[in-house]
């Protein structure tokens, strides 16, 4: 295994992935933490941003900025062009048929809420309306952001929330899929790749079942879109969500992609400027999607930066990003297998899993693991990772999670493995 991977994807690409060249784009990676080089393995929480993305945003803000969609003056047109070009880029990144289904939000969380509130706002009788007797189905491994909005929706409407449970090895237990997703199910919202377990879920099986019963599907791509090629048409889902800050873009921007005919039929969520058609004091009518769902001044320069991040990732090739991460994940998992007293929480193999690896160290609380590793310059995340039900399911208060990205190296994985050993030494002393 080498960190210069020669990846051949469909015979198309064979140049090697140069991780050192990639690292040079990320200023923070040369920081020292307490005198030691930073080893940043908290990417599932948020990624760093390359110069190219920051430069693109700054050039836009310094020379072409203005509010969008509203003016006839030159800057306003340039800003609108930049913002709409960003929408086109994201649409291409997702394999979407056109850009009208791309709604910019502030993060992934807003996107789930947007869909959930739209359902809540729908007039009785509409295909989105929900009430007692209706069901929403999620999974037990959802991020709180794709769980709490549905809990709140069910509470408001009287609908019932159901969830697909987990197997002991960190996968969805599909034994009762037919009864959990049934004729009463209006939405099936589930995570593509789990941020805590690393599990990649069988989208095809779940989408097929949802289609059988006429439920709409929402796929949480917060942890897939940054790391692997994604094609919303091939996935066959109705809605897809991503968040910019986990994929080399700044905080403050996310995306809801939705099938256009659904978005056009959904009632609005946030009310305000830009999402309207005719406003009278006594009532208003609303613009078609995507404007309908972008009330107020949108996240203009953040969308431009997100597009630059998509370009950066596609310039390298998501297939190569994925291959690089898979090599790192393989090294980490086999390294953990070689250690005593360390247990992986989530799939223990490389099959159908992403780069986030959660583990427990016997006798050491995750908080202490995280703090001790930080003293070695190693940044991992400890806690429930906004997926508290998963911790409860596996009987741990919290986990330690290492999650790599395109700029991580095998040497960093080795540093983590050594770090775990010295944590064990320190806390057993």
């Amino acid at each position, binding site marked *: 295994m080498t960190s210069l991977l020669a990846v051949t994807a469909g015979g198309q690409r064979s140049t090697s992935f140069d991780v050192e060249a990639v690292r040079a784009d990320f200023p923070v990676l040369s920081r020292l933490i*307490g005198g030691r080089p930073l080893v940043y393995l908290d990417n599932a929480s948020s990624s760093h941003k390359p110069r190219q993305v920051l430069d693109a945003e700054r050039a836009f803000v310094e020379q072409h900025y203005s509010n969008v969609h509203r003016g006839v003056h030159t800057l306003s047109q340039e800003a609108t062009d930049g913002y709409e070009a960003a929408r086109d880029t994201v649409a291409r990144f997702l394999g979407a048929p056109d850009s009208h289904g791309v709604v910019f939000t502030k993060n992934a969380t807003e996107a789930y809420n947007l869909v959930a509130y739209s359902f809540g706002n729908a007039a009785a009788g509409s295909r989105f309306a929900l009430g007692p007797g209706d069901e929403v189905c999620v999974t037990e491994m959802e991020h709180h952001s794709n769980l709490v909005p549905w809990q709140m929706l069910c509470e408001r409407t009287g609908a019932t929330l159901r969830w697909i449970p987990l197997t002991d090895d960190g996968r969805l237990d599909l034994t009762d899929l037919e009864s959990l997703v049934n004729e009463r199910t209006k939405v099936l919202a589930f995570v593509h790749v789990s941020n805590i377990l690393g599990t990649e879920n069988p989208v095809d099986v779940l989408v097929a079942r949802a289609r059988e019963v006429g439920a709409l599907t929402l796929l949480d791509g917060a942890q897939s879109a940054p790391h692997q090629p994604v094609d919303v048409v091939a996935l066959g889902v109705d809605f897809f969500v991503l968040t910019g800050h986990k994929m080399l873009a700044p905080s403050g921007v996310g995306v809801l992609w939705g099938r256009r005919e659904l978005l056009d039929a959904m009632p609005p969520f946030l009310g305000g400027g830009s999402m309207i058609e005719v406003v009278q004091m006594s009532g208003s009518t609303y613009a078609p999607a995507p404007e309908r769902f972008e009330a107020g001044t949108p996240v203009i320069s953040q969308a431009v930066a997100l597009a630059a991040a998509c370009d950066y990732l596609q310039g390298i090739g998501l297939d190569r990003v994925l291959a690089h991460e898979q090599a790192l994940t393989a090294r980490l998992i086999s390294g953990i297998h070689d250690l005593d007293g360390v247990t992986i929480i989530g799939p223990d193999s490389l099959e159908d899993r992403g780069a986030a690896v959660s583990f427990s160290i016997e006798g050491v609380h995750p908080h202490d693991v995280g703090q001790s590793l930080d003293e070695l310059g190693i940044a991992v995340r400890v806690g429930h990772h906004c997926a508290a039900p998963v911790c409860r399911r596996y009987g741990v208060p919290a986990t330690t999670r290492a999650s790599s990205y395109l700029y991580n190296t095998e040497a960093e994985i080795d540093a983590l493995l050594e770090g775990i050993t010295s944590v064990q030494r320190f806390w057993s002393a």
Partner: protein
Amino acid sequence: MSQSMYQEIILDHYKHPHHKGLRDPYDVEVHHVNPTCGDEVTLRVHVADGVVQDVSYDGQGCSISQASTSVMTDLVIGKQVDEALRTSEAFLELMQSRGQLEPDEDVLEDGIAFAGVSRYPARVKCALLGWMAWKDATAQAADPTRRGTS
């Protein structure tokens, strides 16, 4: 490993906690959880004649939350409730100081070891878990109408 935050005092209390285990008699029992990491403490207080007669507890958590609960029991057991509450205010102030406060060893004794923790906002809640549980339980003990509301 330098382990700057983990002073010997903290490690000692973590590995050899004082007053641990639930005991009788007690007036109030509370259960507190740190939602960010799932740390939990069950804590009992026994107050009589305006004096903290006993504090006993059980729980699971990181070294910081466990050690700080242990230190807390040393600091409050046997004290007048008023004085113990002042001590707990002093500890709270220290933890919210973001590393800017020089702790008073006369008041906080082993508690001064947590001064470094105050620079880590994510850990402050750990250090306060036991203290908050004690304060809550003590308030309930003083006001019988509130008993059992937590």
